[in-house]
């Protein structure tokens, strides 16, 4: 080993033993430090998990959704719009969709009712999401009855429990047949909730959307990419808001670190005096203190990050869930997909280790320039 490396090793060795000699003092700092890392890391990991969940869901959604607007509100769209739109070059497939929301007074929650494209259930059967099944306490073959728009009771036999890849989609979902859907919501034949278009080439999306606006002036096309971009921006923004709110905590931590580093006990002061009398230079003392900071930072960072990882991916971020996710009665119990991102780690590092380091430079230097005779006298 080269002498420079060996020197750093001895310094690190000394630092570790000196830290171990004063466990109480450093434990407090480590605790606060870990807590700060834990909070920030939890927010980051959780919002990232939500974002990737949204991306995963939208992957399967159609490229363009066309909604009709009446007086600025979303309205049912007539099926003849499909003919009116005609054949647009680049569109592989176009069709109407039927879906809607239903408020169930029994559990005080909203369900999403939808007619699937293929494999529609029989007229008196439905397939339901796992959360609905759990809330209503029903299983396969049981009967659920709901009251329709015109107050007629409908009884459905549960023919399947949905287990989609993502709980976020299927939690409050009910699938039923087209005829039943129209009957239940009193939607006449020839009307759809919205139209969807599948487009193979993403570069043609904008042109197709422009053509749609010209052909059907009372509609708005919604591009999947647009939705994805909005989700991306919203989750980053929410995360940013939480970070700004936590800036106070980080600042408090910085002041705490500054205070800890400058409040050297008489014993520590004496120790530095002895070291300098033994021939240590100011630069050596600074280096030793640098290692001290590095050990504490690394330990706190690792501990905090691991705790946050466990918090987010094993308990679904129990602490922050309501703020970052939004809330609903039938909220999906989803297990976020574990994911570690370099950008996150670097950002987190800058939010925690960087302020700590900056806050301790001046106190460290103050300690390092102590004259040996001054403290040992």
């Amino acid at each position, binding site marked *: 080993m080269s002498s420079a490396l060996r020197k750093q090793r001895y310094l690190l060795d000394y630092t570790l033993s000196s830290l171990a000699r004063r466990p109480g003092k450093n434990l407090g700092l480590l605790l606060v430090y870990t807590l700060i890392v834990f909070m920030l890391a939890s927010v980051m990991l959780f919002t990232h998990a939500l974002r990737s969940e949204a991306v995963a869901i939208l992957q399967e959604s159609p490229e363009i959704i066309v909604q009709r607007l009446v007086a600025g509100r979303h309205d049912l769209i007539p099926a003849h719009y499909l003919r009116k739109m005609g054949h647009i070059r680049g569109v592989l497939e176009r069709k109407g969709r039927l879906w809607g929301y239903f408020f169930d007074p029994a559990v005080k929650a909203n369900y999403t009712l939808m007619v699937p494209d293929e494999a529609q259930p029989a007229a008196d059967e439905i397939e339901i999401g796992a959360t609905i099944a759990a809330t209503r306490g029903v299983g396969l073959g049981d009967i659920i009855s709901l009251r329709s728009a015109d107050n007629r009771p409908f009884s459905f036999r549960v023919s399947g429990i949905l287990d989609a890849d993502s709980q976020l989609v299927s939690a409050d979902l009910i699938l039923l047949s087209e005829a039943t859907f129209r009957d239940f919501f009193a939607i006449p034949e020839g009307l759809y909730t919205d139209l969807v278009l599948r487009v193979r080439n993403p570069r043609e999306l904008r042109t197709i959307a422009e053509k749609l606006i010209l052909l059907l002036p009372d509609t708005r096309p919604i591009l999947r990419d647009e939705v994805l971009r909005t989700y991306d921006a919203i989750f980053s*923004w929410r995360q940013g808001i939480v970070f700004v709110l936590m800036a106070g905590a980080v600042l408090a931590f910085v002041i705490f670190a500054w205070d800890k580093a400058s409040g050297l006990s008489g014993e520590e002061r004496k120790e530095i005096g002895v070291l300098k009398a033994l021939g240590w230079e100011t630069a050596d003392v600074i280096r030793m203190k640098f290692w001290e900071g590095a050990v504490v930072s690394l330990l706190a960072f690792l501990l905090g990050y691991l705790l946050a990882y466990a918090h987010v991916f094993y308990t679904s971020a129990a602490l922050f869930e309501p703020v970052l996710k939004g809330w609903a009665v039938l909220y999906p119990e989803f297990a976020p997909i574990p994911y570690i991102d370099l950008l996150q780690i670097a950002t987190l590092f800058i939010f925690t280790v960087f302020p700590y380091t900056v806050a301790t*430079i001046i106190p460290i230097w103050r300690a*390092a320039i102590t004259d040996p005779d001054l403290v040992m006298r």
Partner: protein
Amino acid sequence: MLLNPSILALLVVSATVLLLIALASIFALRVIRHWDIHSGSELQLQLERRTYLISTLVAYCFLAELVALLLFIYNAEQMSSQFVGAMCATGVLNINAYGWPVLYLKIGLFFAGAAWLTLNRVDNQAFDYPLVRVKYALLLSLLPLVAAEFALLLAFFLNMDPDVITSCCGSLFTPEGKGVAAEISGIAPADALALLGASALLVTGAGLHHLRSGRGALLFAGSNLAALLIALIAIVSCIALYIYEHPHHHCPFCILKGGHGFMGYYLYIPLFLATALALGSGIIAPFRNRPSLAGIIPAVSRRHTLGALASLLIFYLVAGYAILRSNLSMLTVWW
């Protein structure tokens, strides 16, 4: 303004570095005016003590800037999903007029910081601080750079308009377009590789000459800078194409993506490290005749040169590996 944690982090680093460098600059002015190593006055003692603080501060600042440079590129890469038309960092940097200047300034600051730290290290090893005025004068000259970087970074992030349709790398790095990026993309791969080979020979020759004779450090630094530029050109016009296995995709940023095995990092990190080391060795070269530095500079310079040559070798090996391993075969088209 996009309120995103990474943007906040970048701004925090930039602002803190500006503050610290401004503090260091005030001290630098005092050193330049009052430094007198032969005096035993209270002021001189204070100044000498404070140099430790300032060296540590500046070292931390440049370390933070290095992390920020990587974070900046990585962040631009990730934000590409939020802008219409952007597919990688290129699109995000194109979103307004400040993106590219910030990147260039950050790279410039990285090199300036590395050079300054080398100077500082050499100076601290000598017993009489022979370069103290030089190094603090240089530090003063860095202050406007740091300030400009902060201002441009702020302008870049404040003027990000998600409604603007930006252009992706495919339209910027294309031989048919206009501007520097297009010109570079238009260079024939064979010419670019020939240039790369020539620059490799030149820089290795200069390095070996410097190692053997102890002279020509400036030549080595200069040829290393040239090698860096040529390497960047070669990446855009040839090496990247082999990594993408696509004869028309020239982007220098998409190679940083995981889908391409993070090859960009293996290329850029040794390349920039080599140039930083060589610049350090170049900046200390003019002072090698100072009596107290005569024994220090040659040793430091030698270490830097060895490090730079080793890093360059890694870069050339990675580039060669990228080309040879690729499934893209342009045997009768380019060669």
